[in-house]
């Protein structure tokens, strides 16, 4: 982050001398984003409205300023979003002047390419993979920038910064390109595309500290609020028309917040009083449940994430 500090070499103008100090994580992410723009024909930034993609948008602004972000943002809308997220998305896009593309899981279902999951754990989280692959095909995107971090999950810990996918969007974890020093190899065949993760080396706390430092606005659901919820399997689920609920599952109103923003059917809340960024940071520092611990989609099996990535999930 830019810090206005005195130069270590004492000079006459010590007080006015402003030094750009290295923030290795930010500097690395900006370097990666610029490499994507330089090495690919049609990059796109995957924007979910969550804190990680909001961070990515700021990094992309910083990478090219005073130019505008030179590639579009793509939102795969599951139709089961928290309403706060969508309003927030539109405001942010307007502010940056970037182009926004939205593609809907609903349409993929209508086209008969996928069908709605049924039962207690029904979610559109997995279905969005098809919508994403269709959008990549439609716009011929060759690089998709995502906000995934290696600290989130075991299979993500092995992900490259430039992760090459085949025509089906699949990840071949046994045949990944080595990444040496800071050199990024974006050479691909026609039909292949690359998923790019500029904040691979950030942790959840790094993201929160950055949000604070940059004074980034984030959706209100990240802060404590009162919400109609019910408990299942030790997790707190949002009571909503999009989330299946047994009759015997009791709805109560509790003060909660969300640590990640997937769609409503796969994101569980945590009990929290944190109403400011500082309180959220304090809470995470104390918390001993990992971030994706409240992601219902990972609980399906021990290797849930790895299986989804092989299917083309980002």
């Amino acid at each position, binding site marked *: 982050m*830019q810090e206005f500090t005195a130069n270590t070499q004492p000079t006459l103008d010590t007080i006015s001398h402003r030094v750009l100090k290295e923030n290795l994580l930010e500097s690395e992410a900006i370097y990666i984003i610029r490499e994507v723009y330089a090495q690919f024909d049609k990059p796109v930034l995957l924007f979910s409205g969550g804190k990680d993609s909001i961070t990515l948008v700021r990094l992309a602004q910083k990478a090219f300023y*005073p130019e505008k972000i030179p590639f579009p943002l793509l939102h795969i809308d599951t139709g089961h979003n928290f309403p706060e997220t969508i309003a927030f998305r539109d405001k942010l896009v307007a502010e940056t002047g970037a182009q926004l593309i939205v593609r809907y899981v609903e349409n993929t279902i209508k086209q008969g390419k996928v069908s709605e999951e049924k039962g207690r754990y029904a979610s559109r989280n997995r279905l969005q993979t098809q919508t994403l692959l269709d959008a990549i095909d439609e716009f011929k995107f060759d690089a998709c920038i995502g906000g995934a971090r290696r600290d989130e999950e075991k299979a993500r810990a092995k992900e490259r910064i430039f992760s090459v996918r085949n025509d089906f969007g699949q990840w071949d974890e046994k045949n990944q390109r080595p990444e040496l020093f800071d050199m990024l190899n974006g050479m691909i065949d026609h039909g292949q595309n690359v998923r790019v993760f500029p904040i691979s080396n950030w942790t959840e706390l790094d993201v929160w500290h950055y949000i604070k430092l940059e004074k980034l606005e984030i959706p209100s659901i990240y802060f404590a609020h009162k919400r109609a919820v019910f408990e299942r399997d030790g997790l707190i689920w949002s009571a909503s028309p999009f989330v299946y609920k047994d009759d015997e599952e009791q709805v109560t109103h509790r003060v909660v917040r969300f640590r990640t923003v997937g769609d409503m059917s796969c994101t569980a809340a945590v009990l929290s009083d944190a109403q400011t960024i500082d309180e959220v940071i304090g809470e995470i520092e104390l918390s001993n449940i990992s971030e994706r611990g409240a992601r219902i989609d990972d609980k399906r099996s021990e290797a849930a994430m790895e299986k989804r990535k092989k299917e083309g999930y980002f």
Partner: protein
Amino acid sequence: MQVLKIATAGSVDDGKSTLIGRLLYDTNSLPSDKLDAIRESSLRKGFDYLDFSLATDGLVAEREQGITIDVAHIYFSTPKRRFIIADAPGHVEFTRNMVTGASNAQVSIILIDARKGVVEQTFRHFYINSLLRIKNLMVVVNKMDLVGFDKQRFLDIKKAFETLAEKAGYQQQISYVPISALHGDNVATLSDKMPWYTGDTVLDLLESIQVDLTDINRQARFAVQHVIRPKTNEFHDFRGFAGKLTGAPLSVGDEITVLPSLNRSRIKEIRFYKDTFETANPGSSFVLSIEDEINISRGDMMVKSSELPIQGKQISAKVCWMDTQPLLVGKTFSLQHGVNRVMAKVDALESVYKTDFSAADTSQTHLNLNEIGQVRLKLSKPIFYDAYAENKFNGAFILIDNQSHFTSGVGLLD
């Protein structure tokens, strides 16, 4: 907070994953749900202890076989520092992962099994560390519990390693720590079973290691990634060069030379987003403007006029091969040096190095996966480089196969 990048290497059974799991556990970096999963899994396998190796072995295949097969990245922090570990496997066939993991590391941990001592694998790890010229090394002698916490055993291993370390040929900082990763002795807390050990714990050492981002030759290198021309009302005539600075600081007013054109100018502005600065430190990304109108495009490099790098169309480098398709003399690759790409034809394979430091083999006609060779290359256009030993950031390149587009090799320039 300062980030320290650590590379770990070790044979399959050295207990590397256990050490990392133990570091995570002792720094409260294992969240309760992960700890639960480890407890459950350890119990299911019938262990009477917590199998911390499960904290890092990510992929399904690995969990089934109980081995690590690719570089995994692990994150933890203490109030003093943030740490990123690149955990590379120690199999004989996976030199490429070790090189990959170590290429970004400031510190390397070499694990030695106290029962086995310095083995062939140790030579290989040390060789790769030396090849990449990693300055800070931690030699961790693990499984001390299985040799009765014997001081003499530790000293013998230390002595054997010191003999090996003399072969590196450059200044290193090496510390030696006897531990039991399984029981946590000397990992984060000093062991009461080894009162004869007067040094620090693994964690204390990691917290106190000094890292310097300026390079040995202290010369600034700024490779242009992208030319910024906003053409908006506010920035109508703005022309800036986006890149990341390495090696040493740059300041407004510095006289610079642009490569390859050799045109000279002075730095007019150092801009980062909406702020401007007088000086930028190495490691920072920013947008730089110069006083004169000079034609500059992606891949060009700006340096101080008094510190020109080497310009070369015929280069010689130590190449580590990472592809199942061997490197053949006469074959053409894309060579990527930083953000710059040229074509490169293999002129000669002069020798293949032995990772046990014995005499190099000069009879081989091609370089196979996991081999390291002395290679001469002829380039389509000159590159502007430093010897790797002088400037890490401007002294390395990768070779990309033009058919498969795989990153087939990495080169360290002489």
